[in-house]
């Protein structure tokens, strides 16, 4: 194979133009490693520069955290990634090592908060749905401190107020939390405008303080006169006015909520300042009712059964609801060998409106004046009657009325009442009972006078009135079988 065509290669003739490549020194091929070095260094520098600080975050559980996969997001922008998840030395929590991006290296400051975003169904509704597909991620709320920090403790739940979120927080005072929870919505005209961000019990005053956050621009709706009420769930009330079902939004039916409204005529008031305190009313009616002022405790004595009369049943005065029953208890009248029923009610004299102002006598003490007003009414024939309010349910209410044909009334001043544990009452109006129990065919006034040495009469007057027959008829119509019984009316 050495010689194929020409037996021996002819001596190569020197070409006319010899190639002259004169490069003395190292070969140009050394440019290759230099370029490689430059490229390699550039790649590595780029990689190093793009990685930011490494922080560790403690979590209770590594549920959903996957090294190399789980992202750290700030305002839904990926700013880092979990590099490793390890158990702590004591094995009571897990430690996620997170590599943050260079661009957000200043995010790792003292008051920065981290939490794991997972699909969550709680009182605040459903959140983190997107993580069903993408897997959990770590949310960040950037702090404002300038102090750098590298070790954090992760929150178990997302914070309810993010820094820089526009809006204002308020505090509501309440005695009962109801079904409210952190995250419950704040509704304005059934429109979600905020949420409950926390609550704590103040043991000193035995009151709950509920912190709420109302998002901008709805926070402008809150002025110092704004009324908040608990709009939790379905409110079914069965009372003398019938069956009433009241619901808020479906979400608040499930999770509870707070509604607020500005009473008529207060729309123009300036906004309430951040952190203002408000009272949380149990329902809308209570919230928007004109302020009642202090209640007056009244005691009534009935000679017949008060079946159908419940706590919180209304007390009417000529059809106007002026109070509610607070206690019902049995008594024993040893002299007459009877069991009178004592019904205690709270009435709000302010609900009498103009009547109160025109009929009241002058005086400096408001409560005292209300007491004397009531005493005068009793002297003029005012009696309490238990009437059937709802024929279907047999619910009863107490009507304060002038039934007429009352023989004698007496009002007494009460210093101490043995039946009341909290008997610090100061006034009693006692009226002699006029019992006209049509069901049992009894007619006429029965004068009851229980020996009560600790009481003494303040005023007593016969209470016959001209309009008695008409009122008696009214009473008959209102109460078919219930005794129209004028009990003792006593104020304490």
């Amino acid at each position, binding site marked *: 194979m050495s010689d194929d065509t020409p037996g021996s290669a*002819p001596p190569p003739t020197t070409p006319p133009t010899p190639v002259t490549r004169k490069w003395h020194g190292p070969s140009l*091929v050394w440019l290759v490693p230099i370029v*490689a070095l430059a*490229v390699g260094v550039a*790649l590595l520098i780029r990689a190093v520069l793009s990685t930011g600080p490494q922080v560790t975050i403690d979590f209770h559980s590594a549920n959903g955290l996957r090294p*190399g996969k789980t992202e750290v997001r700030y305002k839904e922008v990926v700013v880092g990634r979990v590099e490793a998840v390890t158990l702590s030395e004591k094995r009571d929590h897990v430690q996620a090592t997170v590599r943050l991006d260079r661009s957000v290296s200043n995010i790792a400051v003292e008051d920065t908060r981290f939490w794991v975003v997972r699909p969550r169904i709680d009182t605040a509704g459903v959140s983190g749905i997107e993580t069903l597909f993408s897997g959990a991620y770590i949310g960040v709320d950037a702090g404002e401190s300038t102090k750098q920090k590298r070790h954090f403790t992760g929150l178990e739940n997302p914070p309810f107020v993010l820094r820089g979120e526009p809006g204002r927080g308020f505090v509501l005072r309440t005695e009962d939390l109801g079904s409210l929870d952190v995250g419950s919505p704040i509704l304005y005209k059934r429109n979600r405008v905020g949420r409950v961000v926390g609550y704590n019990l103040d043991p000193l005053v035995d009151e709950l303080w509920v912190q709420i956050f109302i998002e901008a621009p709805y926070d402008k709706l809150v002025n110092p006169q704004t009324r908040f009420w608990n709009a939790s769930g379905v409110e079914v009330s069965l009372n003398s006015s019938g069956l009433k079902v009241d619901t808020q939004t479906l979400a608040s039916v499930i999770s509870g909520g707070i509604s607020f409204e500005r009473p008529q005529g207060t729309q123009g008031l300036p906004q309430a300042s951040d952190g203002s305190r408000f009272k949380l009313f149990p329902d809308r009616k209570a919230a928007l009712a004109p302020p009642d002022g202090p209640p007056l405790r009244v005691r009534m004595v009935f000679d017949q059964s008060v079946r159908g009369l419940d706590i919180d049943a209304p007390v009417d005065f000529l059809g106007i609801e002026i109070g509610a029953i607070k206690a019902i208890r049995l008594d024993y009248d040893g002299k007459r060998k009877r069991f009178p029923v004592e019904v205690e009610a709270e009435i709000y004299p302010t609900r009498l409106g103009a009547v109160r102002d025109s009929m009241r006598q002058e005086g400096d003490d408001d409560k005292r004046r209300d007491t004397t007003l009531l005493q005068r009414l009793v002297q003029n024939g005012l009696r309490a009657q238990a009437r059937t309010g709802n024929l279907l349910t047999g619910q009863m209410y107490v009507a304060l009325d002038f039934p007429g044909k009352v023989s004698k009334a007496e009002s007494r001043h009460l210093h101490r009442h043995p039946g009341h544990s909290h008997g610090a009452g100061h006034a009693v109006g006692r009226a002699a009972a006029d019992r006209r129990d049509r069901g049992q065919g009894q007619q006429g006034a029965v004068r009851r006078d229980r020996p009560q040495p600790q009481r003494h009469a303040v005023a007593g007057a016969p209470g016959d009135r001209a309009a008695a027959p008409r009122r008696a008829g009214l009473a008959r119509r209102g109460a078919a079988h219930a005794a129209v019984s004028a009990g003792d009316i006593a104020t304490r």
Partner: protein
Amino acid sequence: MSEASSLQTGAQLRLYGCPTCGRVSQLLHPIADSTPLPCPRCATPLHHRRPRSLQRTWAYLIAATILYIPANLLPIMSTSNVFQGETLHTILGGIEELRTGGDWLLALIVFIASIAVPMLKIGALLVLVITAQRRSRWKQVERAQLYRMIDAVGHWSMLDVFVVVLLVGTIRFGPLGGVMPEPGLLAFGAVVVLTMLAAGSFDPRLIWPEEEAPQRHP
């Protein structure tokens, strides 16, 4: 091969093998050292030893070694899908994933193709270059076999690059998912190319150094 010392070498006989067309030519008259010798058939410059072979090999080898670091440290590709978002993959990470996933065999194959072979290539070339530099006569036959092996394996290490390029080309579902190449792939491809160049520029005749200085050894 028993009388290798008595064997006349091509240089002694002034024979030149053309690396391009394979023709063997004989120099009849001694000529000046700097005179270029083109192959009479294909005009390829003829040399007894490829000029600056060791230098070239060294340069390529060093470049390959340098780029081998980012090739393994940097991600070679990123995959994204609706469920996971963007995920970066390094070669070692991929092997680890396969191993933990239970695919021992696949992990082994990827390891051999992507980690072991390039490393062995670089190492073997280093051995060849160093021994050639020292004109060593140690295990010459084995070294020659090693060289042939390196040359043959050559581009097979590009498997990763092919796979990634194929994935990038085929998996493109817009917002649903996709595969994108990352800088590590560039470095990895460069390593493979550079080791091939290093093996190509190495003159295997250097495995067999001659006793006396050759007549023309540029």
